């Protein structure tokens, strides 16, 4: 432990930030996609509306993952 580089905690933090941060959005997008598939199966005529709203909701969920990525990038470069 004495030879541990003091910067190593920062590196571990970078990895954990994006690693753990990607779990939520990954699950969220998967759930969204699944529900959209279900809705599409029930009502194929509503395809346009379902698709558009799905993309919008996925972008919201993905943004959270991007926040985690930004934290990791900040830890890396600053």
């Amino acid at each position: 432990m004495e030879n541990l580089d003091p910067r190593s905690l920062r590196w571990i933090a970078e990895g954990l930030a994006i690693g753990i941060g990607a779990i939520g959005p990954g699950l969220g997008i998967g759930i969204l996609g699944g529900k959209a598939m279900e809705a599409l199966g029930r009502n194929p005529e509503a395809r346009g509306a379902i698709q558009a709203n799905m993309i919008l909701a996925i972008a919201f969920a993905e943004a959270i993952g991007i926040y985690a990525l930004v934290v990791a990038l900040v830890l890396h470069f600053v």
Partner: protein
Amino acid sequence: MKPRTLIIVAAVLGLLVAGTFVRGPLPPVQLPAETIVGGLPFGFRITNTILAAWLTMAVLLILMYKATHFRFERMSLVPSGVQSVVEGIVEPLLNLVEGVAGAHWGRRFFPLVMTIFLFIMTSAWLALVPGFGTIGLVEKPHAGSGHHFSAVDLGPLRLAFYLDPVALGGAKEKAQPEPAAAKEEHPESKTAGSVEGELVPLLRSANTDLNTPLALALVAVFFIELWGLRAHGFSYVKRFVNVGSLLRGKPMGLIDLYIGLVETIAEVARLISFTFRLFGNMLAGEILLAVITFLVPFGLGVAFYGLELLVGFVQALVFGMLTLVFASMAVAGHGEEPAEAGHHKPM
């Protein structure tokens, strides 16, 4: 197959095969935009992202000029050529905007939403053009040692380019000229015909600099509030500071005050989320492409290129759509939001 199709297919396959021998250099990724022209008064500097933003604006202006000649009277009712392409972009989005916001407000929102969409998409797609991020100046490396560029003297200029020998399975060593070429004006540690330093690209996607997404988000939020004020007059402020019930002596009015505070925080959070969603996607895409061309033979990296195309389009659409949705919520009045449907029960 026609001979022309055969040639195209052969060329594409040949490029993919040749791409397995070519690899990019280890990317010197850095977050802040690099200065191209510094030393302007008041501490201003021209960064490569500013140049890319100007280029984006120029591309959009030229496209729109070709489509309309900036004179609506001269546009033909039956479009052709560039005008029909632009109409093909404008009309679906106009229908979408009017579908979400209604006919009257849709017309008001459309210029901002369209501009945001076009600017983000154009700046994202321009960054995929060969030349962005690969042509630039060679400067002194500030983190570790830079790459070795081979240099050639052309009169007053030194042209430096990057060669990366790629060993394929250890058996073959082939030096292929890499797409990184640099016009170098600050020779550092010259040995005969070689220059060491780091490549500072002349052009870098505008939204990879935090300032551009922040500016777009500020403009979007400013207009959302403006339209809210225009729709409701001064009582729009009641959405954020709701002291009506409290002043009438009902202690339950404290809840309204709290809800108003949460709405304010939500507005600020929207600003931050707009900024970082766009910035993170663009920056991550740029880093991803640079790292993939380093890790993986060039031909296989083409798949990520497609991903970047998609991401550029989707992020532009999302930014525009979110602006639109929040603006429609602002002009519809907070009493009509489904989340506050229970708020209007008589107390």
